[in-house]
């Protein structure tokens, strides 16, 4: 049983179901990567895991506890963190305030964490007083990830964190993700930069039409010619 797992999830946005019984799980100290074509339901699955979508069937458990009907902000209190794919910064707040909001539930001194984030994304330190809405696409993405890191989560969920991010930062990011997982955190990533992501993945899911098509270790998926051809761009 994984640390965080969404089992046989079914549900959607009111019309036809988007998730058709998919299962996604990740363990502590693991990186799980979800790939799949556009519109497969990857983001939807992430939202479901985070309680931003009510499920018609299936369950979400965290550390053995059923949290299917828990509200998102309570999940934050359970040390889960999520970076959505779109709309993932407070555009009208400064970069620094964005990070502070990430630490909203923390009562301790979070200046260390902030320093770490600034280390990881030096550009943010430079732009700390600028409104996030005025940043470039890639910079915003960095703010978004930085905000999630501020919570010091035990589960970190990232929806396409590298979209629009320059190669050098992407590398940093993946390095950082590996470092994070090594501290015993469960990391769940949705990626279209699938090959890089699967390289570091302990477990990979290929999602198609809201169903699990393939589930295996990252390496194995990378090696599977069919997966490569249909989903990883050859």
């Amino acid at each position, binding site marked *: 049983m994984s640390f965080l797992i969404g089992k046989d999830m079914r549900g959607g946005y009111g019309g036809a179901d988007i998730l058709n019984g998919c299962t996604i799980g990740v363990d502590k100290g693991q990186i799980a990567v979800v790939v799949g074509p556009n519109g497969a339901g990857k983001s939807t699955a992430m939202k479901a895991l985070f309680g931003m979508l009510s499920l018609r069937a299936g369950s979400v458990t965290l550390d053995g506890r059923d949290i299917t009907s828990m509200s998102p902000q309570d999940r934050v209190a359970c040390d889960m963190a999520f970076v959505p794919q779109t709309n993932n910064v407070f555009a009208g707040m400064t970069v620094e305030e964005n990070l502070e909001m990430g630490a909203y539930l923390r009562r301790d001194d979070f200046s260390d964490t902030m320093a770490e984030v600034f280390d990881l994304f030096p550009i943010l330190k430079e732009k700390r007083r600028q409104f996030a809405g005025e940043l470039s696409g890639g910079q915003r993405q960095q703010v978004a990830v930085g905000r999630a890191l501020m919570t010091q989560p035990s589960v970190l969920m990232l929806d396409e964190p590298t979209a629009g991010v320059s190669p050098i930062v992407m590398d*940093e990011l993946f390095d950082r993700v590996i470092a994070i997982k090594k501290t015993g955190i469960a990391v769940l990533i949705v990626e279209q930069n699938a090959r890089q992501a699967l390289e570091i993945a302990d477990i990979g899911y290929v999602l198609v039409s809201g169903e699990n098509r393939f589930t295996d270790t990252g390496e194995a998926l990378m090696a599977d010619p069919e997966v490569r051809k249909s989903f990883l761009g050859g």
Partner: protein
Amino acid sequence: MIRTEHVVKRFGGITAVDDVSLSIDKGSITGLVGPNGAGKTTFFNLIAGRFPPSSGKIFLDGEDVTGLAPHDLFGKGLLRTFQIAHEFTHLTVRENLMTVPPDQAGETLWKAWFMPGQVRRQEKEVAARADEVIEFLNLTHIADELAGNLSGGQKKLLELGRTMMVDAKVVLLDEVGAGVNRTLLNEIGDAILRLNKERGYTFCMIEHDMDFIGRLCDPVIVMAEGRLLASGTVDEIKSNETVIEAYLGAGRDRAAERAKA
């Protein structure tokens, strides 16, 4: 095709584009790369008339177009996509596409009122074209879905699709690849090549995926901190020390290391 002379753009104290002079050749597929915040998108916005440059001049096909409004530039055959998708949320995917063609008879009120025949005929043509594009982008099953309800990647596809609705001269693509499935992206690459070859479109594309750039673009221009850093063929760029330091990093080796770890 596009030429800029000493173009500068400042936002308050920030200089996003700093004295950029370059030209994009007719019929080329030019890549534009650079670290986050280098000013690429801003540069596109300047060319496409989203806002006027603080100083400098912009030429399209030899004509000075500095300060023209986006719709005027569209009329001159310049199309662009947005890095952060700008779909028409409450229109369906098909309607999103059908909105694009210019000079539709039905967009003039009195024709819409009093010449329904002509309008209907034209609508049919436009719809047919939209359906072709939809099919090409694998969006057929959601052709009637509201664009606001699409997934992140689908929205990017729609962005691209809009440029395929008209015969353009220049197309500016701002990270169409980000968030798009790689298999599909390859097909998109093919389409870009085809449009370039068969219809003579000029492309300028911002992209962070060097493989994709490598496959399509020649030449490649690198920007950093608002300035022009380098330009040349993909291979030249990839081996350029300053570019590696500022932008590419030691990506390849590190990935290999990681795989081992």
